[in-house]
């Protein structure tokens, strides 16, 4: 029996790593086993990296080790960001992932150029195009989330035509390179065009669509890694890329469904365009408002309270006060749950992380589909920093830009309380008829301050 070659041993390690990746995702299905999933993912990745360092193809180590140290030095602070900053961190890591996939493709090209076989050229070309556009697209998304760039969608006339022409140009350049591999000067042009397309792709999208965009970029980053696996004939990259791509794709579909929009609609029709028609019909209507004292009295008399948090709660840094409110109400024997809309927050699942960070038990965080049936038995629905996801117009008003979007049925609760700074319209610029219902009490004020007052009133300390 012959001994294994070094290459075969490395390949076996990669197979084991691929199994580890799948188990990691499988165990992420529940918070109970999720930690184990991360651990196996870490072991699998660590093994694969170690094995690769023993690859006989690797002849120089010094710079590789330095690059690994630099990577770790960048990675650690990016792993320690605040929970509110996780969306932009995630966008940035899509950018890094896509960048490295693109750079490896580019390096492969220049090692072989101009003698690149047709099929390999098509693979490399496609891989580099997707990697490059994901890189710039993710940077723009990160910039928007970090609020370095304008959040509002940036749109102009004929935008889709311009964007599609740019994408077509990149693909045509790739096809020319397949037929005429000697035109090597076209390769950097193709990369440049793809980089520009990435910017054009994300610039017009913003605001409420960010969770969808970030999921889409996730899926592109995954597929570019998988394509790189095709180029290098590396199955472990194909597996990891396919898993990442599939995950991003599933999340994109969930986000689109949660906003009742199609992929093409998110990509080609920014929300900003529909606002104008909806803003016209604002008439003077009266709202009822209440003080913290009155609101606390109603809450204290309730049996069941459902809190509906939105990103506004996180912006106001109110989640820890909300936890105190949760504790205060629970102590009085009141059943308190949190209703989580899939697009609450700025990326899929963001709101759950923000509330978990504030030590709210995860079994109290309830998904939209599960909580909606409970609103008719709910005494008080308390809305903190959420707007469009509670707008009943989405169910009834066919003229509304958000018509058909699944919402939290808060208007079915006996009393609705809305903590809001003023009557200004929400992010999507749409008026919310919920605020004018007889059962609705508007609690005007800053989320953190008002919830703090509620906590004080409930603990009986009034502070007169």
């Amino acid at each position: 029996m012959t001994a294994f070659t070094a290459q075969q041993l490395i390949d076996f390690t990669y197979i084991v790593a691929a199994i580890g990746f799948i188990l990691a995702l499988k165990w992420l299905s529940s918070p109970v086993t999720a930690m184990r999933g991360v651990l196996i993912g870490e072991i699998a990745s660590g093994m694969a990296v170690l094995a690769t360092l023993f690859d006989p193809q690797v002849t120089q180590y010094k710079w590789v080790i330095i690059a690994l140290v630099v990577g770790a030095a960048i990675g650690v602070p990016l792993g320690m960001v605040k929970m509110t900053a996780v969306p932009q961190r995630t966008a940035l890591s899509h950018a890094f992932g896509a960048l490295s996939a693109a750079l490896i493709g580019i390096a492969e090209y220049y090692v072989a150029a101009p003698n690149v076989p047709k099929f390999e050229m098509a693979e490399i070309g496609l891989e580099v195009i997707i990697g490059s556009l994901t890189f710039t697209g993710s940077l723009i998304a990160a910039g928007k989330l970090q609020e370095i760039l304008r959040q509002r969608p940036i749109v102009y006339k004929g935008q889709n035509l311009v964007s599609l022409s740019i994408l077509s140009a990149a693909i045509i350049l790739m096809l020319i390179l397949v037929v005429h591999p000697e035109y090597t000067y076209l390769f950097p042009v193709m990369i440049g065009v793809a980089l520009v397309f990435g910017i054009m792709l994300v610039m017009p999208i913003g605001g409420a669509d960010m969770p969808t965009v970030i999921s889409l970029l996730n899926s592109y980053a995954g597929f570019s890694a998988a394509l790189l696996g095709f180029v290098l004939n590396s199955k472990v990259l194909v597996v990891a890329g396919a898993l990442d791509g599939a995950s991003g794709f599933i999340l994109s579909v969930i986000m689109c469904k949660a906003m009742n929009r199609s992929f093409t609609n998110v990509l080609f029709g920014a929300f900003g365009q529909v606002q104008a028609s909806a803003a016209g019909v604002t008439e003077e209507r009266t709202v009822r408002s209440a003080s913290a004292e009155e609101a606390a009295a109603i809450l204290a008399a309730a049996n069941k309270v459902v809190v509906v948090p939105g990103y506004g709660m996180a912006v106001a840094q109110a989640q820890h006060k909300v936890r105190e409110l949760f504790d205060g109400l629970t102590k009085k024997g009141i059943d308190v749950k949190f209703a989580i809309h899939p697009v609450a927050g700025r990326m899929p699942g963001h709101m759950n992380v923000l509330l978990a960070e504030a030590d709210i038990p995860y079994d109290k965080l309830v998904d939209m589909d599960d909580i909606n049936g409970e609103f008719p038995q709910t005494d008080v629905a308390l809305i903190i920093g959420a707007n469009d996801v509670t707008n009943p117009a989405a169910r009834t008003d066919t003229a509304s830009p958000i018509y058909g979007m699944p919402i939290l049925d808060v208007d079915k609760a006996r009393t609705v309380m809305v903590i809001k700074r003023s009557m200004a319209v929400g992010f999507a610029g749409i008026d919310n008829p919920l605020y004018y219902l007889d059962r609705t009490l508007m609690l005007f004020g800053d989320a953190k301050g008002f919830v703090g007052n509620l906590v004080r009133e409930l603990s009986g300390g009034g502070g007169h």
Partner: protein
Amino acid sequence: MPADFISSLFVFILAAFLGFEVIKRVSPLLHTPLMSLTNALDAIVVVAAIIIAGRAETRLSTILGLIAVAASFSNMVGGFLITDRMLGMFKTGKAVKKS
């Protein structure tokens, strides 16, 4: 069409299907950690980057490879770290009272 392509496609299709089935079951509660974890797993491209940089064929390929090593390894380290931190925050009612 090279034979490598067919075998890669085979692996890709199977992995994508398996991915769909497994990821569909991930609780919406954990969608943010899911994204950061898949990001960290995807950073396995670092192995390809190490080989490109380590082969040191041309100056350009080495430099590009080294940048790719740093970029993808930062994703691996940062991705696992933040996923770990986030999951540590998810506690049940009993565990919260104890802490």
